[in-house]
């Protein structure tokens, strides 16, 4: 069965998935350890889509500043923020919002707490009904009940920080498909995220420099 993709507008990421975007009606996982870029990539993608679509952000650990969505150029009036007190609440809210018509639900957590079997199952049902996309962002392992339901796993790896004005202004990321039901496992791309900074005119994923990581930055990353 060929899956339909929800185009993020980032050609690097959209080409990677094999369906022209994040697979609709399916679960996508941006995996990686803390500090590997999944956090900012997730927010940047959410911000990009919030300009034209209703989006939801489930912040399991309460570490997201929703102002960052705004700083990445997103439209907060299109964004519903969920701050669950228990993991079950977060999964239930994601299911309800996806069912109601939210196009992309970003669920963020560095470590995933175990959930019951029902939570991911009902979320999958809601996704299939609403044709939305759920993106789990963060972590290197998922609860056993969730893992088999992931259609696409994109592994995030930070290559290097970019610096400006004696400050960290962004980061280079390497994305690689670690698991996919659409094929194309092992495909990768490299992109740069410009962090929201007062001096930065452009924030979010900067695609113009997709394949032009400065060699010294990569050397830094290799040595660091």
């Amino acid at each position: 069965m060929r899956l339909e993709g929800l185009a993020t507008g980032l050609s690097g990421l959209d080409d990677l998935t094999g369906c022209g975007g994040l697979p609709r009606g399916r679960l996508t996982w941006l995996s990686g350890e803390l500090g590997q870029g999944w956090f900012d990539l997730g927010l940047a993608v959410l911000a990009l889509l919030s300009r034209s679509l209703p989006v939801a952000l489930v912040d399991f650990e309460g570490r997201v500043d929703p102002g960052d969505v705004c700083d990445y150029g997103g439209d907060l009036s299109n964004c519903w923020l969920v701050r669950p007190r228990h993991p079950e609440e977060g999964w239930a809210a994601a299911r309800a919002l996806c069912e109601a018509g939210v196009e992309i639900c970003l669920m963020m957590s560095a470590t995933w707490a175990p959930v019951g079997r029902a939570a991911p199952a009902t979320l999958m049902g809601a996704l299939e009904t609403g044709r939305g996309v759920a993106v789990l962002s963060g972590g290197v392992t998922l609860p056993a009940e969730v893992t088999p339901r992931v259609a696409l796993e994109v592994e995030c790896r930070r290559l290097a920080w970019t610096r400006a004005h004696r400050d960290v202004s962004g980061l280079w990321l390497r994305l690689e498909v670690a698991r996919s039901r659409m094929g194309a496992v092992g495909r990768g791309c490299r992109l740069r995220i410009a962090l929201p900074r007062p001096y930065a005119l452009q924030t979010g994923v900067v695609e113009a420099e997709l394949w032009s990581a400065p060699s010294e930055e990569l050397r830094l990353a290799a040595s660091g």
Partner: protein
Amino acid sequence: MSGAPRLACINFPHLALSLAWRAHPELRGEAVLIGPRHRSGREVVLAASEAALARGARPGGEWRQAEIACPEAVQLPEDQTAISELRQEMRLVLQDLSPLVEWVDDTLAYLDVRGRDLRLPTEAALASQLGRSVQRLLLVPPRLGVGQSRFTAWVAAQTAGPGRIRLVPSGGAAQFLADWSVERLPLPDSTRERLRDFGLTTCGDCSSIPLPDLQRQFGPDGLLLHRLCLGRDRATVSPWRTPPPCGMRRVLAGPVEDTEALRFGAPELAGGLAVELAHRRLAAGRLRLLLGGGDPGGEFWEQLYPPAPVATEQELLPLVLNLISRVRRPVQVIELQALDLVPPPARQHRLWSVGGDHRDEIDRAVARLHERFGEGLVWRVAPRSGHPGDVPEERLVWNRG
């Protein structure tokens, strides 16, 4: 921001001549005399075309003598009102490219081109744009020179042909001026005569002589001569000021070197400008930051072009911070100007939104979630206006569901 002074000298035919050529294009290339102008009981020539100059007419010279020297010249009266209007128009064109413009007379102007325009990143690009703008207005090609001092820039403009630009790199002035005749230096006649007597004919001859020797021979003129020959004469302009169409100006208690301190004042500048723009119902297509160090000639500037016209504080603030981040020297006067004013763009965020139909349904789902799990699960947040802090609770307005 570059610290080395860079001046552009633009030399163009007298405005009266440009007006005459506009009205009578057939007179281009012909001998034309504009005047006479009455000065101290004398009738003098206001302007003369190249052909008339070649025949001996001189601007400021006796009108009668010019008539004799150039009997076939077309004589046109001066139109003071039209000249004044064109002068104003020309000043605005120059000021559009650099906020620091010195209008010397109706044939010559200096601009400080040290500042940076992101669309015209190089000096050559800025100078080309300057030349094009002036040519578009006057319909005659100007001469342009860029150098590290007024004299260097002026010589560069004189040696460039009409419609040409000559750029003298910083540090290359002495070499560039080496062949320039001392006869054309702005020095008293007596000094020039003595230079001739010494057999010093070019700037290169003089620049090799130590300064104490020049001062011993020529007194204060020796110092001036030394500076002129090495391109170290005055490197500042006395800018012609006009109130910007829309701007904010702040004078600080003393020179501030710390960028952080300037950044602290940025929200006030951005907020003030946003209020002014809102009052006029306009948005800025270009922002210019003019900074003064407190001493004359210590001014410098930066300008940038936002991707779309900006009008609100939220839009202005990052741009202002961006401009301020480039400051590299003490600042006492800070002026933020909004240029290229246009009606603000309409903001219809959800015009193309495909999710608009689901909004009510999502709100109902949120209400059900609150009923089930209690208030505080789902939040709607919006940016808070004013000058909120960095903490999310302060910078955002939080609404339940």
